[in-house]
């Protein structure tokens, strides 16, 4: 194992981690505000991937137009899901919302099976992303670098929205204490819609980078990345946006490194991610960067 191969793997890991980070932020923002594990997030991600696919394949849009259109479309989908399935249950027991999220997840998958069929669709890979580049002795596909750049850009935008705008401040206030925020005159419904829109938009960006890398689209493709990104969010400290980004990158790098350096146990990489989740939850439930969220007293 040479040093250049290590760098190569590290780069792949950061690239995969960037995609994970995009999705993990969606989980963490929703959890921070509603204390809800948004089981449907992975399926919103799947829908985003299909939107991009159909934009290119059926409407014959240039790929960049399609990619840019997908982001608002997926954001709208996320807002619709929240409006239809979560908002009516705002005052219901917390577990009902979780059940509803599971229901929506199944619903989206089945809509996918019905509309897109279960046969895998090949995602077109624009030639810009398929170039072989090399820096010194490190060789990589251009999409690896692009994924890193795109996800970092999206994360910076999210950071800006969450920490530098009025809406972002409202969002953080709601996540601190929803009742007090309401008393302070914050429009809770709008903030929650906004959160879902941002989360889903990030999922759409993640879906695009993911599909360019793994170009087979199936209607349940969102499930495994969804669960992994939830793990990443918990790892970084759920509710914390920088935490989710860190968790995403750690998970991506860890996964690539396990496959690269310990190929014998690569079949278990999913189990390893879950074991990490279980250990974090048991030993340090606040995660790496999170503050402890008090459960119902």
């Amino acid at each position: 194992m040479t040093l250049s191969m290590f760098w190569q793997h590290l780069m792949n890991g950061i690239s995969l981690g960037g995609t994970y980070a995009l999705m993990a932020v969606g989980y963490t923002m929703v959890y921070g505000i509603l204390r809800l594990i948004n089981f449907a997030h992975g399926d919103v991600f799947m829908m985003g991937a299909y939107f991009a696919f159909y934009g290119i394949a059926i409407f014959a849009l240039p790929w960049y137009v399609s990619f840019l259109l997908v982001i608002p479309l997926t954001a709208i989908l996320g807002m619709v899901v929240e409006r239809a399935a979560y908002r009516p249950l705002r005052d219901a027991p917390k577990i009902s919302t979780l059940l509803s999220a599971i229901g929506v997840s199944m619903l989206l998958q089945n809509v996918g099976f019905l509309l897109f069929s279960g046969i895998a669709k090949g995602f077109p890979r624009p030639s810009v992303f398929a170039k072989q580049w090399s820096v010194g002795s490190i060789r990589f596909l251009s999409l690896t670098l692009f994924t890193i750049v795109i996800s970092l850009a999206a994360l910076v935008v999210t950071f800006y929205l969450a920490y530098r705008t009025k809406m972002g401040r409202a969002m953080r206030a709601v996540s601190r204490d929803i009742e007090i925020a309401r008393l302070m005159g914050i429009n809770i419904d709008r903030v929650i819609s906004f959160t879902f829109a941002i989360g889903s938009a990030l999922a759409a960006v993640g879906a695009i980078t993911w599909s360019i890398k793994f170009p087979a689209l199936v209607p349940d493709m969102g499930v495994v990345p969804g669960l992994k990104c939830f793990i990443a969010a918990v790892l970084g400290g759920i509710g914390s946006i920088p935490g989710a980004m860190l968790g995403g990158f750690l998970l991506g790098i860890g996964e690539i490194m396990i496959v690269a350096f310990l190929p014998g146990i690569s079949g278990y990489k999913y189990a390893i991610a879950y074991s990490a989740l279980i250990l974090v939850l048991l030993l340090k439930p606040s995660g790496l960067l999170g503050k402890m969220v008090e459960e119902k007293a």
Partner: protein
Amino acid sequence: MRKATGRILTAVGLLIVFMLLSWAEKNLDPYKCRILNLIAINAIWAVSLNLIYGYTGQFSLGHAGIIAIGAYASSLLTVSVVKKAKFFMIEPPIWPISVIQWPFAPSLVVATLAATLFGFLMGFPALQLHGDYMAIVTLGFAEVIRVFIMNLYSITNGALGVKAVPAYTTLLWSWGCLAFAIFIVKKLGDSSYGRAFKAIREDEVAAETIGISVFHHKLLAFTIASLFAGLGGVLWAHLICSTDPNAFTFLLSYQILIVTVMGGMGSLTGSIIGSIIYVGLAELLRPLDTPTTAIRILGTTIRGHPGTRMLVISILFVMIILFYRRGIMGSKEFSWKWLLSKLQAVFKSKTTEQEK
């Protein structure tokens, strides 16, 4: 109504049901028997989830893993040595599995106990957590179990699954096990343990302050629920005659959740009703999945399309959660007293009409 009358009615009712079942076993075609078996097995799983969630308030999504343990343990214990040697193509089975070939009854007991043990091992760490964290950790455990099953070729035959599992599950076995599960859970629910479970469900902190050992009771509920989940898994394996790791994804846990929620959280009779509706609906909607069916609505013909069935079921599930959260039975149970009072009311209204 006296207590004894209720017991006699229950005994008579059970007797009639089991006579009907033994008649059905001989006279109905295998397809119908299979549906009846599936109803019983799903009801066992729903009863099991009800014990954890409906009674004790702990949200678990780990059922698929426990069921997988039960199903695999029993399959590996009963499949004949010759067939095992044939089916384990990638790696030969390791020692105890390669020589064992048991009859159904002992295998059922051992496999169920194995599932119970795994349930205990899963519950011990998972129950330290609450609410949705517990849900995600149990889901994680179930997936880890599945990943191990997929990769341990010399024990489970990995992704190929175990085939030619003997078809031992009969209606008497499945419905007998359901009756057993309901009897135990009902007795447990009515005992001091059951009251402690419900106290934990209502308010964990309050339960702790009045001296209930919260963790022990949660673990007890979880372990017993795992026993029944495993039992259902054994019956399922011997009904569909093969065990495939892809059958035990979280979708199976979701399915059990749908059945339980439909029937009503905390209601055992609700679990049976939920199971009848779910399995019945899944079968009735089957034509929707086949392209040969054509439904004429308003002059346009709609053709069946694969996937429609699950779409309808998931829409129904979301609708139930949004508009009818308590399920069919709520947390009530069927009772003879209720039935008799209804009958009496009907009878009385009829006689008064006649008098007029």
